[in-house]
């Protein structure tokens, strides 16, 4: 009887000890579990280079943070999903990262339509969503009462304002012509340009659209020339922008071109030929030959981490890297401020960031409940291609 009781007690004791051990192990594991950072971006297809640039920026920042002890004593871990530039695939990927992977913060990629598809989900699930490339105005200004969407990138409406002002200051623009890609991005910028011109009492010589498959943009450009356009405001990605430049060459029309950042991705210098340098476009950041300080250190870190990077041409465009790098550091500060990985606490943690000395600039109170965009009109750099490299336009 006694021995039976002892056996029973012994078994219970063993179970209790085992349970205690498992409990303590899991407690120790949860303290060291990485904080997951999600990324939904184009990792394949024509925009794959953008996803690669964002990954590089995030990776360098994560490695820096982890080397310094992580966030809340836990390392950061990047979990990536490919949206293939497709909004429904992006939305599915975002849902998976939030619900299954339980990422603390979700990062977005190049495509505005994909980001716009994710915005309602992020707000509904109360998980902060950080945009680092897509510039569509309604991404952050989405009208939600409880807004969880932040951005360290350009904003179309502000870009259009900056482009118009640049054209007036540098080319005495009086009668601009718009040449826009025929998609929602072109449409969004048409309204941004119109707003910027209206506020200055200016009108346009014309608004022309073209398809990315158009071989020859001469007919559209001829209309603008006949209407007396003195400057072209251009919005299109690399290949179609190059078609505009080549068509201008065919027409022998030497007109200033001020552009959104479309030409920056890929081989615009090669595609557009010698006239590529005539296109002046905005960037939020660019690596330069004689760079000092943080820019030089990060370029060196990139070269060490990615041996394929040999010259500045291999980190073109730099905006994806720089925006992602700074956004990740700001996110780490927000999580520290929150003291936990709760979505609402992190969202509020973004509002309490005082100052962060970043790659693009020193951010002073970058986010408030009314301002979810960390970059403004003064943070844009005007650049152009010289050979294969993007360099700032000299005054």
């Amino acid at each position, binding site marked *: 009887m006694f021995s039976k009781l002892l056996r029973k007690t012994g078994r219970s004791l063993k179970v209790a000890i085992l349970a205690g051990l498992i409990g303590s192990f899991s407690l120790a594991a949860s303290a060291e579990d990485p904080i997951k950072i999600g990324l939904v971006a184009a990792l394949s297809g024509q925009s794959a280079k953008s996803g690669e640039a964002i990954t590089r920026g995030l990776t360098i920042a994560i490695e820096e943070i982890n080397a310094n002890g992580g966030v809340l004593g836990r390392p950061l871990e990047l979990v990536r999903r490919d949206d293939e530039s497709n909004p429904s695939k992006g939305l599915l990927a975002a849902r998976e990262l939030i619900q299954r992977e339980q990422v603390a913060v979700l990062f977005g990629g190049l495509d505005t339509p994909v980001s716009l598809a994710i915005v309602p989900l992020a707000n509904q699930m109360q998980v902060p969503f950080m945009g680092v490339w897509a510039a569509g105005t309604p991404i952050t200004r989405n009208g939600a009462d409880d807004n969880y969407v932040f951005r360290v990138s350009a904003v179309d409406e502000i870009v259009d304002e900056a482009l118009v002002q640049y054209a007036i200051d540098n080319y005495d623009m009086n009668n601009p012509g718009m040449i826009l890609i025929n998609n929602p991005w072109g449409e969004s910028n048409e309204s941004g340009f119109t707003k910027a011109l209206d506020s200055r009492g200016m009108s346009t010589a014309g608004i022309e659209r073209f398809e990315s498959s158009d071989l020859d943009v001469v*007919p559209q450009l001829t209309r603008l020339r006949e209407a007396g356009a003195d400057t072209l405001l251009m919005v299109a990605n690399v290949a179609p922008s190059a078609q505009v430049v080549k068509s201008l060459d*065919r027409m022998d029309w030497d007109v200033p071109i001020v552009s959104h950042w479309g030409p920056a991705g890929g081989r615009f210098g090669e595609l557009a030929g010698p006239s590529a340098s005539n296109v002046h476009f905005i960037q939020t950041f660019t690596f330069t030959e004689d760079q000092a300080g943080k820019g030089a250190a990060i370029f060196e870190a990139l070269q060490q981490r990615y041996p394929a990077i040999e010259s500045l041409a291999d980190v073109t465009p730099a905006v994806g890297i720089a925006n992602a790098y700074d956004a990740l550091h700001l996110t780490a500060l927000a999580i520290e401020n929150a003291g936990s990985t709760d979505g609402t606490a992190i969202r509020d943690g973004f509002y309490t960031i005082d100052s962060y000395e970043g790659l693009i600039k020193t951010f002073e109170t970058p986010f408030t409940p009314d301002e979810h965009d960390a970059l403004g009109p003064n943070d844009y750099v005007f650049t152009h291609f010289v050979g294969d490299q993007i360099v700032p336009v000299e005054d």
Partner: protein
Amino acid sequence: MLTAAIVTGLGMGSMYALLALGFHITYIVSNTVNFAQGSAMMVGAILAYTFCISWGLPYWLALIATLLLCALYGLAIERFLVRPFIQGRAQAWLMATVAGGILVDNLVLFTFGKEPRQFTSEFANLGVSVFGSSIYYLQMIIPLVGVGVVIALVLISRYTRLGKVLQACVQNPDSAQLMGINVTRVVAVAFAISTVFAGIAGILIAPLFAVHADMGTLFGLKAFAVAILGGITSARGVFLAGILFGLTEAIVTIYFGSAFTQIITFSLVILALAIRPNGLFGHKEAVKV
């Protein structure tokens, strides 16, 4: 303005016509069309780029190699994507050629890369000024090549033994087979010729446009519209419809604005087909029973 529209329209129209002639040649021989024509055009441009720019081969050698490989591509499409379905009296070749084109587009995306590339050629930038508009020699060569292809097709079908063989296959394939004509081989050759036409279009386009995996998709679609508009059984009709389509696009864009280009152009195509259901130059086939 009109000069610019005419130059652009002729160049673009000739491109559409060259691709559409590929639809014509397979249709008259086998009553099938190769919906991978746009993809074959892209293959022509990518191969020309690879041989000339990446490998540095002389132009003439690159041209021959490109067209040979395009012909092989056509033969493969016929053998694996068309013949099995035709022999089974099924219409699934239609979807099979579409799927084959998509497959090749994606294979090129993975092998050639995602970024558009420029076929740089000194010749591409040479040109003359006509009424104040610069015209590249290449833009003038494209319509000339198109006219040359049509004349060759007409002469072959009227005056050569091959033409007679083609006509026999068109009129009654079973009887042609009984008369000792290898109809299967004739159809295969027709597919090879169709992809060679597409390859020529790709080679001509490459220096003017960025070379990338998606470049043929919309072209293929427009070329099919052109083939139907011209009357797919008439080589002359298909070519003229191509020129007409290109000119209409350019003139509408220049006088009404780009917002109206596709609306007006395709409305005119629908109107033309409503008035002439067999195409502008096509005719209803008389079936003797």
